[in-house]
């Protein structure tokens, strides 16, 4: 009997040792909370799908951790005099592998042509085809629409196996950055041809040319990436294996799994942060803010919500510059942001374009002269009351009723956002008084939120966001473009704040501003030769938007808190594209990065960035 018990005990001990033995020093293990839709990087637009793509297939160029473009599949590239032809000289000897790591073929310029052809084939419904149109590739949209049927007429050619030439309809100074997106990635032509729409259904129906091979792909269970030992840049790939395990409740469970040693990284939600501060303060690290997104508040110029909230009254109010300024000066952005993050000071931004997004001659876009006085337009309660006094007078004269009902929207299943609007309502009303504004919190549905709120005009004030489509300040003017319907000669309204609709009304003040603004944007777009001048013009246009309180810049992407064994500042840092998502260049530490190490590497990185 004793023997039995001791044997059982031994067995139990052995079993309990299994998890410990599995914690492999070279494997990075982490949960993921939502499954990929497809491995086909040529069609998918979601970030998680692209995370897989970024690690298994390479792009023409990539970025280093300071946000500078470095060669990848292309060793060098050049632009023609007229800016219409881009030629890329490809690296030789890069191979395609299958999921078993077997070499299949050499990667050539033809594979980029095949990739673009796949993206532009309507049957495959690529969600990212529009990116190719934006890049101004000759005949791209015409081929997609079926107006051109011969793909040879599209502006992409493989001159030989190692020379790839793109032809553009108009000069695109930022073209190189665009090649780091899924729509410009290569695919092994014969495979794409053979599989058609079935490309990328599972890990065996796709070939690999990147740092990792997806050895195991079990949806809703596990992704196992194994380093490709034959990768051309294998010396910069430091993590041997990446094991992603599915858990739909990963937000709740992965911090606990990290403490138990089951995973090597986890995001820490705001809710549990206080507790971690108390018990594991030294393990809390801050992630790196993503450059690609920006959040800003929009005033709606085409209110379509219910009569009880008096949309007509809002229309009069929003066309009054003093009214908009009173809100902008009354809004304490840090206060509301407190619902989402603990360090709002580091995230707040005074421009729509995020800082560090683009630089010209060593100067960051957001520090250009046009933005010199921009701080003066933000939170200032005294000024807000001055604006209020003026606005009350003007609005009463214009026949508006006070208080003005301000419909502030949020997404019903987003508790941080719900908290934020509550804070903002309380803050705005306390500064401006409920005799002036009546903030109404308006819940939008969890599904099709934007279609039911912003695009439907069911808001007066809403936090909006935009993501870059290429690394150039022009991308941040896209939400406010002039949407002129050529058939009716009227404006259909840009999808964000529909301000261009005012050009068809008699709100003269707004019209005068819009005419000046659109003229400035057009001037900036036309400038493709002198980049510094181009950037200055875009900066002036953006400053106009802010100085007229058409939009209230809010914050960058939230760099969340996490516990991790990776040094986040080693990874690629890209203003656009999928390079951010790569594990290449990153080391896996034996232990969790401490708060101090994290702060040090941030400092070192920030110093290097500023040089």
């Amino acid at each position, binding site marked *: 009997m004793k023997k039995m018990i001791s044997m059982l005990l031994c067995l*139990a001990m052995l*079993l*309990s040792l299994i*998890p410990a033995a599995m914690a492999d020093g070279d494997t990075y293990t982490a949960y993921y909370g939502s*499954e990929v*839709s*497809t491995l*086909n990087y040529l*069609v*998918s*637009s*979601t970030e998680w799908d692209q995370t897989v793509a970024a690690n298994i297939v390479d792009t023409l160029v990539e970025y280093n951790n300071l946000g500078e473009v470095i060669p990848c599949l292309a060793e060098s590239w050049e632009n023609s005099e007229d800016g219409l032809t881009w030629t890329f000289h490809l690296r030789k000897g890069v191979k395609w592998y299958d999921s078993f790591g077997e070499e299949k073929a050499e990667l050539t310029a033809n594979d980029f042509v095949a990739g673009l052809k796949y993206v532009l084939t*309507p*049957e495959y*419904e690529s*969600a*990212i*085809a*529009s*990116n190719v*149109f934006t890049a101004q590739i000759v005949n791209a*949209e015409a081929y*997609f*629409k079926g107006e051109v049927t011969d793909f040879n007429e599209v502006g992409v050619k493989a001159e030989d196996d190692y020379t790839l030439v793109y032809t553009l309809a108009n000069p695109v100074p930022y073209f190189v950055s665009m090649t780091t997106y899924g729509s410009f990635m290569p695919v092994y032509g014969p495979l794409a041809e053979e599989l058609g*729409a*079935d490309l*990328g*259904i599972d890990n065996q129906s796709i070939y690999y040319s990147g740092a990792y091979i997806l050895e195991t792909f*079990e*949806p*809703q*269970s596990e992704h196992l990436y194994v380093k490709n030992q034959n990768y051309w840049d294998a010396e910069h790939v430091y993590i041997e294996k990446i094991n992603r*395990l*599915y*858990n*739909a*409740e990963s937000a*709740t*469970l992965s911090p*606990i*799994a990290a403490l*138990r040693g*089951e995973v090597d990284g986890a995001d820490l939600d705001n809710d549990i942060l206080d507790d971690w501060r108390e018990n594991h303060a030294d393990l809390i690290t801050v992630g790196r803010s993503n450059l690609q997104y920006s959040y800003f508040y929009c005033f709606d110029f085409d209110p379509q919500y219910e009569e009880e909230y008096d949309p007509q009254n809002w229309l009069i109010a929003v066309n009054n510059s003093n009214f908009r300024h009173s809100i902008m000066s009354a809004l304490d952005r840090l206060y509301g942001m407190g619902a989402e993050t603990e360090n709002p000071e580091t995230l707040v931004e005074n421009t729509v374009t995020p800082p560090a997004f683009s630089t010209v001659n060593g100067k960051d876009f957001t520090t250009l002269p046009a933005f010199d006085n921009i701080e003066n337009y933000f939170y200032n309660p005294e000024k807000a009351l001055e604006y209020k006094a003026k606005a009350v007078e003007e609005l009463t004269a214009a026949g508006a009723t006070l208080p003005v009902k301000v419909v502030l929207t949020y997404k019903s299943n987003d508790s941080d956002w719900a908290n934020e609007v509550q804070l903002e309502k309380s803050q705005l009303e306390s500064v401006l008084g409920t005799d002036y504004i009546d903030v109404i919190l308006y819940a939008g549905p*969890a*599904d*099709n939120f*934007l*279609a*039911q709120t912003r*695009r439907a005009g069911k808001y007066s004030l809403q936090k909006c966001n935009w993501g870059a*489509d290429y690394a150039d300040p022009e991308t941040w003017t896209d939400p406010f473009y002039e949407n002129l319907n050529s058939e009716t000669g009227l404006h259909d309204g840009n*999808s964000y704040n529909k301000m261009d609709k005012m050009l068809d009304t008699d709100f003269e003040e707004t019209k005068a501003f819009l005419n000046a603004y659109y003229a400035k944007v057009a001037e900036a777009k036309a400038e493709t030769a002198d980049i510094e001048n181009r950037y200055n013009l875009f900066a002036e246009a953006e400053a106009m938007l802010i100085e007229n309180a058409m939009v209230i810049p809010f914050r960058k992407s939230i760099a969340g808190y996490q516990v991790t064994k990776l040094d986040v500042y080693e990874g690629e840092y890209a203003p656009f594209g999928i390079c951010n998502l790569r594990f290449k260049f990153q080391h896996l530490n034996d232990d969790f990065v401490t708060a101090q190490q994290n702060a040090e590497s941030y400092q070192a990185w920030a110093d290097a960035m500023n040089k």
Partner: protein
Amino acid sequence: MLKYLLKRFARSILTLFFILTIVFVLVRQMPIEGYFPNFEKMTQSQIENGLHQMGLDQPMVVQLIEFYKGLFHGDLGVSRVYNRGKPVWDILKTKLPLSIQLGSLSIVFSMIVGLPMGILMAKRKGKLPDHIGTAFIVLIQAVPAAVYYLFIQLYGTELMQIKLRFDPADFRSWILPVLSLSLGNIAYYAMWIRRYMVDESTKDYIMLARIKGCSEGRIMFRHIFRNAFVPMAQYLPTSFLNTVVGSIYIESLWSIKGMGGLLVDVIHKQDNNMILGIVLLFACVGILGLMLGDLLMVLFDPRISFSKKGGD
């Protein structure tokens, strides 16, 4: 009886047709934005092309006919968002077995524990076992499932020294999910069997049996339990068949690759073929469950009949 069953079977086909048609029409009322995760950045030509590829630009009747044509050939179509390009049935096929296994285990376990518990409670009504049982039922009812599921997982795995995620190959990792899933059912079975048995035990025929001198055990099982089980029997096939639906909480917490929450998920993603495939599956299960339940009730209680004899 056979005639009755045949008739009901024929009717079921009609019901299925109604269900599928209604759901087909309903999902097409969703805004088109939901079909495109990248809607914001798409051009008009892309959206038009997308709708064309999905066939959504055709009149509803044509779409419906196409759908039934495919269905008639056993083709449910392919998923569009959930697992792009994969046939719907292939996706369901891999998910069904785990949910069914887990659910059936839980039902069997709940009955093994819940029924005796309810019987004991009814037998010792107002005494200690009844009070303990009631306390358990009340506790399970009172604490939200979402809370105690998480509790069991966190502390259970720590106690058993196993991983947080479920591993079908490891016998130990089945215990906690099955237990979590069963607690609610145990309380449910115990509560209803106690209720029915208490109701039944005051009836005249029980008094007669007692006067006749039947043993208490015989009364309990031959008379009271059998009668009390009739209303429960109605739900039995449905509960077994319903295991295909899976449990959203348990399966997400433990990363079980089952059906739990799948329908809700694909509805949010507006994956129309997946929605219709799952609705078809669940509808078959639901209709079959109702039919078997009625049948079982007739078997258990000869007083009930569905064939038309007499009555109004």
